[in-house]
C-alpha cells in the first residue's frame, strides 16, 4: 500500500488493477470498474449507492481503464472530503467500508445493472458518429493501428458488447482476483490511526510484475491516406507518425520536448504557423504517446481547405530541423517543467503518479526528472525528429446537410 501525505481538502483512496487483455476479456475489463463502483451488496442499486455517496458529503467514485505496453489497467478511485472539515469522525471509516465492499472478491453483481450498462454502451457506440471528434479518433485508430491491439477499441466494440453476459462478467472478476496485481494508494492528510485502519482493510496483492513491454510496428511502406465524409461544418484532420522512442529510452525526454515544440503549447510551430500565420484552424495540437511510440497531430479546419492544412503541417515537419533553436528549446523546457511541478499540486495526478512510479519501477525524484529535461540538447531533439515517420493521414470531411445555416 502506498501512502502519500499531502495537504489537500480531500482524501483519495485508489485501487489500480493490472493484468492482461485478451479478445475474450476486453469488454469485461472495460465494464467492470464502472459496474463495481456503481453498487455493492449493501447498496444494491445505483440509486441506493448514489444516496449513500451524497450522505458521505458528496463523495464520488472515478473509474477508468487504459493500456500501458502489454498490460491493461483498471482503476477505481474514491474521493471524500477531509473529515476534519465537516467535523465527522466516522466519515473515513464509512468510506473505507464502502471501498472494501466495492472490491470484495466474493461480491455479487446486480444483473440488471450489468444489462443496463451494456445497453448504455451499445447506444453510446451507435451515437458516436454524432460526436465528430470522438468518431474521427475512432476511425483514425482503425487505420493507424491496423493489425495491432490498439486498433481494437478499449470497450471491445459493438459485437463484444452485444455478446457480453453476466455470467462471464462474474467469471472475469474471479479470474482477475487470481491473475491480476492490485495496488492501493491513499492520498491526503491521514494520521497513524487512519493509516492503520486503511492497511487493515485494504491490501495490495498479486504477482510481481515485469516491466511493461513497449513496442509498435514499423511504419507502413506507403503513407495511408483516407478521406471519409459526414454531415459537418469543419473537417477534422489527423496525421499519425511513428516515433519509436519509448518510456525507458534515452531520447524519451527529447521526444517530450519535440512534441511540445511541435504542437504542445501556444508557442509551438504548428500553433504559430497553421493557426496564427495561416488562420487555417482554431485548434491544433500534437500528442506523443511513449507507451505506443507514436505522435499524432489533430486539428479542426475549414472543410474546404483541409488539403492546404495537411500540406502546411507536412511542411512544418519537413522544416522542423531548421526551426529547432536554442531559444525555443529553452521555452519548451520551461513549459514542460511547469507542467511537471504544477501536477504536484493536483491530488489526482499525485495519486496516479505514485502508482505509475511503482508499476513502472521508476524511482527518480521530481528534481532528477527536471534535471533530465534541462539536459536535453538541440542535437537530442534533432535525433528524435529523425525517427519521426509519417504513417497515416485521416480526414473526416464535412459535407453540410442542406438545411444547415450558421
Amino acid at each position, binding site marked *: 500500500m502506498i501512502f502519500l501525505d*499531502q*495537504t489537500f*481538502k*480531500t482524501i483519495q483512496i485508489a485501487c489500480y488493477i493490472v493484468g492482461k487483455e485478451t479478445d475474450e476479456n476486453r469488454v469485461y475489463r472495460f465494464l467492470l470498474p464502472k459496474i463495481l463502483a456503481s453498487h455493492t451488496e449493501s447498496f444494491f*442499486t*445505483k*440509486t441506493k449507492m*448514489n*444516496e449513500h*455517496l*451524497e*450522505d458521505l*458529503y*458528496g463523495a464520488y467514485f472515478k473509474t477508468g481503464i487504459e493500456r500501458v505496453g502489454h498490460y491493461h489497467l483498471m482503476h477505481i478511485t474514491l474521493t471524500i*472530503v*477531509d473529515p476534519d*472539515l*465537516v467535523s465527522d469522525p466516522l466519515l473515513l471509516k464509512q468510506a473505507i467500508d464502502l471501498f472494501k465492499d466495492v472490491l470484495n472478491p466474493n461480491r455479487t453483481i446486480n444483473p440488471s445493472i450489468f444489462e*443496463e450498462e451494456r*445497453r*448504455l454502451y451499445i*447506444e*453510446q457506440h451507435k*451515437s*458516436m*458518429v*454524432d*460526436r*465528430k471528434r470522438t468518431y474521427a479518433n475512432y476511425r483514425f485508430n482503425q487505420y493507424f493501428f491496423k493489425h495491432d491491439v490498439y486498433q481494437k477499441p478499449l470497450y471491445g466494440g459493438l459485437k463484444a458488447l452485444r455478446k457480453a453476459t453476466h455470467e462471464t462478467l462474474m467469471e472475469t472478476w474471479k479470474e482477475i482476483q487470481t491473475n491480476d496485481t492490485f495496488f492501493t494508494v491513499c492520498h491526503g492528510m491521514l494520521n497513524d490511526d487512519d493509516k492503520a485502519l486503511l492497511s487493515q482493510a485494504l491490501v495490495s496483492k498479486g504477482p510481481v510484475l515485469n516491466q511493461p513491454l513497449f513496442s509498435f510496428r514499423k511504419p507502413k511502406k506507403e503513407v495511408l491516406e483516407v478521406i471519409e465524409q*459526414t454531415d459537418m*461544418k*469543419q473537417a477534422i484532420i489527423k496525421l499519425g507518425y511513428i516515433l519509436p522512442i519509448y518510456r525507458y529510452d534515452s531520447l524519451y525526454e527529447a521526444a517530450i520536448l519535440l512534441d511540445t515544440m511541435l504542437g504542445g*503549447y*501556444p*508557442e509551438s510551430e504548428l*500553433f*504559430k504557423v497553421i*493557426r*496564427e500565420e495561416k*488562420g*487555417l484552424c*482554431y*485548434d491544433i495540437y500534437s500528442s506523443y504517446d511513449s507507451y505506443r511510440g507514436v505522435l499524432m497531430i489533430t486539428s*479542426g*479546419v*475549414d472543410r474546404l481547405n483541409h488539403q492546404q492544412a495537411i500540406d502546411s503541417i507536412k511542411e512544418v515537419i519537413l522544416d522542423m530541423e531548421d526551426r529547432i533553436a536554442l531559444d525555443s528549446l529553452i*521555452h519548451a523546457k*520551461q*513549459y514542460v517543467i*511547469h507542467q511537471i*511541478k*504544477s501536477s504536484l*499540486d*493536483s*491530488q489526482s495526478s499525485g495519486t496516479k503518479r505514485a502508482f505509475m512510479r511503482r508499476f513502472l519501477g521508476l524511482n527518480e525524484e521530481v528534481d532528477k526528472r527536471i534535471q533530465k529535461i534541462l539536459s536535453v540538447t538541440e542535437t537530442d531533439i534533432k535525433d528524435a525528429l529523425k525517427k519521426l515517420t509519417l504513417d497515416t493521414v485521416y480526414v473526416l470531411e*464535412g459535407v453540410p*446537410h442542406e*438545411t*444547415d445555416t*450558421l
Partner: protein
Amino acid sequence: MKQIHFERFKETLYILKLKNGLTVHMLPLLLESYTTFVEVSIPFGGMHLAYQKGHLKKELHSGIAHFLEHKIFAMPEGDAFAGFSKLGADANAMTSYTQTSYIFSSTEQVIEALDYLLNMLDTPYFNQENVESEKKIINEELKMYLDDPIQLMQNKLLENMYHVHPIKYDIGGTIDSIEPINDRDLLDLYRDMYHPKNRLLTIAGHMDLKALTSYFKSYEKKDMGFYEKPKIIIPKEPKHLVKKHEVIYKPTSMPKMMLGVKLPSKNRKPQDAFKREMTINMFLNMLLGASSKPYEMLLEEKLINQNFFVQSTFEKGAEMILIYAESKKITTLKKKLIDLLCIDREVYLKKSTFDRFKKAYLGQFIHSLNHLETKVYLYSRFYHQGLSLFEVTDVLNEISYDDLNEVMNEIKANRISTLFLKRPKV
C-alpha cells in the same frame, strides 16, 4: 492590506485596493504547493450587447466580447501566448455570458508573468490586419461548436425561449455577426470596459505576499486616467415563450431532445439571487439527479441513456432550466418529463432527501476549493455577483424545505419549450 480569515475552511484572504483602481484579492496556500493561479476578470461578457455611457447609448455586435478576448493577446512584439510561454507560464482566457477572464498558471517567475499579464491588458494593439486574420480563426471556433449537436440545439432552443434577452445569442456570436467588427469597435469597447477600476485580480496558490505587495506598489503608480463605469442595459424580456416546440431535421444516429423551462426573473439582492439559484439547482437534482427515483425509472424504461443532463442557468433577466436527452422514444420522454416537472414532482421532494443534499452540497463546495483553477474562477464569479466565495455555505444553510416548494410552483407547462433533432423524413 485587509486580511480576513475563514477558520472553517482554513483559508485567509488578503485584499488590496490600488491607487489606479485595480482590486487585488489573494488566497495563499503557504504549505506544500508549487503552482500560482492568476486571473484578471472583467464583468463584461457575451450577453452584454448594449450599454449607456454618459448620455451615449452603445449597441454591440453579438460575439464582440469574445472577439476582444482573442485580440487582447495581440501585442506589438507578437502573440502574447508566446510571451507567457517564454516565462514558463501557461495562459488561457474565457468569455462567459457576463464575464471575461484572463488566466495563467506558473511555478516560476510569477511576478514577471503577472507583470506581463497586466501589461498585455494595458496594451490594446488592434489593427485592421490582425482583426481580419482573427476572424478566420474565430470562424473555425464557431463552426467547431456548431458541429456539436448539444451546442447547436442549445442555441436554437434559447432563440425559441427568449424574445429580446441577449442570452438568446451565442457567446461567440455568428460568422455574420462578427464580420462587421473592426479595430475601432474593439478599441472603444476596450476603453469602456477594461479600465483597472473594472478589473478584479485574483491570485491563489503558492505566493510570496511580500514580493507581490512590493510589485503592486510599483504597478499602482501607472496612472490609467479617469474612468466612468458604463451601465449595462439588459432589455426587459416578456414572460411568454417565442415558440413552444420545434423539430430540426438533420442526420443523426438517435433522436435528441432539449427542453427548456423559462423561469420568471426579477431583480434580487445578490444573496437572494444566489439562494434562489442554489434552491433550483437542488430541486433539479432531487428530481432528476443520479440518486433520484425518476432518473432510475427513466433508465429502467430505456427512455434515456448516458447522454442525459439537467442544468440551470441564472443570469440577470434570464433564469432557466435546461434538460438534454437522447432517446428512441423522444415523444414519450417529453411527456414524462413535462408531467414530472409540472405535476408529479411533489412525490419526490422528501425532507430526508433535502437534508442529504445539503450535506452533499457542502462536500462539493469543499471539493471545489481543492482545485486551484476552479477556486479562482468561482471566486471572481461570485465577486462580480456581489458575493464572497466563503459565503456560499451560509447561503446553503439558509435554504429551507419550504423554499423548494416556492420554486417548484414557478414551473408551469406554458413556460416549457422543447426542441427535437431528428433524422430527415425520407
